[in-house]
């Protein structure tokens, strides 16, 4: 589904990603771990198309298409979803209207007839229950005045609504208490199928207790330096990132 080859990214003359390789297949959950400032969020931004980088080279192929050539909104319409680390407030725009607008765009892009008002509301309520979103939250403006936990729940709700093929969860666990974490993780697990894939970006192992990954990648110094199963996350948690320096798969 996603093939990243030799990805180099720099911003303001500083190289952040230095030859990253990653391969994600349908049905898989990949965790990307690593200390702060190693380029985890940059990876999420580059996949989704955020245009803030000076120089991007390498290859990102998604469903056989060259992602670099696609506009941000087209990548989204093709099924790439980012759960933001810091969800943005859009005052005065209700989540209902926001999702309606987004869903209609995606349907039109795919040549499908957008949902009618009634169909939309039914779908909206189904998804709301799936991620245990309170009714009250749905009528409020997008992220406006939301607590950290509410924002993250709202991201997962949007993910449920848009039903992406590739979801990237950027530090979705940060700022969540244990109950909220469980709700968010349950939502993600319910949305998991053999058709879609998830990339979980985190620097704690905690979230991976709930969303169990098939692969754990350690991002360090702009490259993936070690890949393993879920046990790698425990090892990291126990031994710290310093340990990785001596046990990398590749030369640092």
């Amino acid at each position, binding site marked *: 589904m996603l093939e990243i080859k030799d990805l180099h990214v720099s911003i303001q003359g500083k190289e952040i990603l230095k030859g990253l390789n990653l391969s994600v297949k349908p049905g898989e959950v990949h965790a990307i771990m690593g200390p702060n400032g190693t380029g985890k969020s940059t990876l999420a931004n580059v996949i989704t198309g955020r245009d803030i980088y000076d120089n991007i080279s390498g290859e990102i192929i998604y469903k056989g298409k060259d992602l670099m050539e696609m506009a941000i909104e087209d990548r989204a319409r093709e099924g790439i979803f980012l759960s*933001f680390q810091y969800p943005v407030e859009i005052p005065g725009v209700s989540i209902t209207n926001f999702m309606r*607008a987004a869903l209609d765009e995606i349907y039109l892009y795919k040549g499908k007839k957008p949902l009618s008002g009634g169909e939309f509301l039914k779908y909206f309520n189904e998804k709301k229950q799936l991620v245990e979103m309170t009714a009250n939250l749905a009528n409020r403006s997008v992220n406006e005045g939301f607590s950290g936990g509410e924002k993250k729940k709202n991201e997962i709700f949007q993910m449920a609504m848009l039903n992406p093929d590739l979801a990237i969860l950027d530090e979705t666990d940060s700022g969540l208490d244990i109950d909220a974490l469980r709700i968010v993780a349950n939502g993600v697990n319910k949305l998991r199928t053999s058709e879609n894939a998830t990339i979980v970006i985190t620097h704690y192992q905690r979230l991976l207790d709930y969303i169990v990954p098939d692969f754990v990648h350690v991002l360090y110094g702009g490259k993936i330096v070690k890949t393993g199963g879920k046990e790698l996350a425990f090892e990291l948690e126990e031994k710290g990132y310093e340990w990785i320096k001596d046990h990398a798969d590749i030369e640092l």
Partner: protein
Amino acid sequence: MSDSNQILDEVTQSDYKYGFVSNIETETIEKGLNEDVVRLISMKKNEPEWLLEYRLKAFRKWQQMEMPDWAHLKIPSIDFQDIIYYAAPKKKETLNSLEEVDPELIDTFNKLGISLEEQKRLTGVAVDAVIDSVSVKTTFTATLAKYGIIFCSFSEAVQEHPELVRKYLGSVVPYTDNYFGALNSAVFSDGSFCYIPKGVRCPMELSTYFRINAANTGQFERTLIVADEGSYVSYLEGCTAPQRDENQLHAAIVEIIAHKDAEVKYSTVQNWYPGDKEGRGGIYNFVTKRGLCEGANSKISWTQVETGSAITWKYPSCVLKGDNSVGEFYSVAVTNNFQQADTGSKMIHLGKNTRSTIVSKGISAGRSHNSYRGQVKINKNATGARNFSQCDSLLLGDRCGAHTFPYIDTKNASAIVEHEATTSRISDDQLFYCQQRGLDTEKSIGLIVNGYAREVLNQLPMEFAVEAQKLLAISLEGSVG
């Protein structure tokens, strides 16, 4: 909840979709302005002597006045002798039914989405259609008459209800008030008149639709709304004009009188032709709108969505004379390309415990300039008066300007006056967030701007709110990129 997607779909359609010109046979007079022209207009309208006198006094006053220059506007000099002051679609002496109206005219209004055929009105909005200088058709007059409501063209009111017109004309905006007010008082040609009798709640929205069609003409309408004790009316006003390279002058007056316990809600969606992307053409919109809360517990509420005109100079105001009376002003003003707007409100507190609210949302894009100018005045007898003002500016791009000029003048120590102001931009983060959900740049901006203006849009009657949301998005097309 309005269907924002459908609205957004229409965003990409066209720049200014009301820019067409209708081929209507028009009767015009010679260009230029002098006492003879004022007399000619009055004669054409078969007016009583007192009204001619009123016009002439106004004209003489106007000649002594100077064009105001205090607004934050660059106004090219206007040659008042190069304007036609009267243009009217040719018609039969009296119009008894719609069949007698020029089909081209009906077609014009159909194109604008306004059906003049009563049975086709789904929402039950009574319309007075004013094209160039003359009211061509007022719908539902008979239905409204059953309630004792008078809703007709201004000219008709002068003929049929001269006592009411004479009593109230100029009682809120005297002809001496300001330059453009004096000009209007001298040459106004038509407009709408509305009287709601005591205790009557008007059963439908009343609306005036203004259309400029003829070239080189000025449009000077006059609207007078009188709400007698305990009555209620909601009034809508819409405006469009053809796309032309030269500028056209529009100088209107709206006067509202609310007696004891009466409430008037006045909503405007102003979409005069704004000029092209290089700033050529467009309407100069110099309008005086003022309401008098004459009696105790009366309320006047102005809501405006201003997207059109090359230059807008407009300050819908409330004089809160009656004790416990309430004045409200909700505004969204959008400027793009080379448009300039200097708009806001005045709240004059005279009575005790009078309350006013001002919510202004300015949106500037392109190379435009958008100013809020507001005055809150608390007189010495206005014990317990309260005002809350909120002025927000949203900037799109880095070549436009937003300005705020609040004036507060309090002569009573018990008054509470609050003023809040913010200036913001659409952030890249917001745009990226919307795009990541599948919306393209323009739709994202449309959505964000509509959210920003929602507080004001919520004040509009339903039929207008949808129209206004589309307009906001269309007006900002191509403003980022």
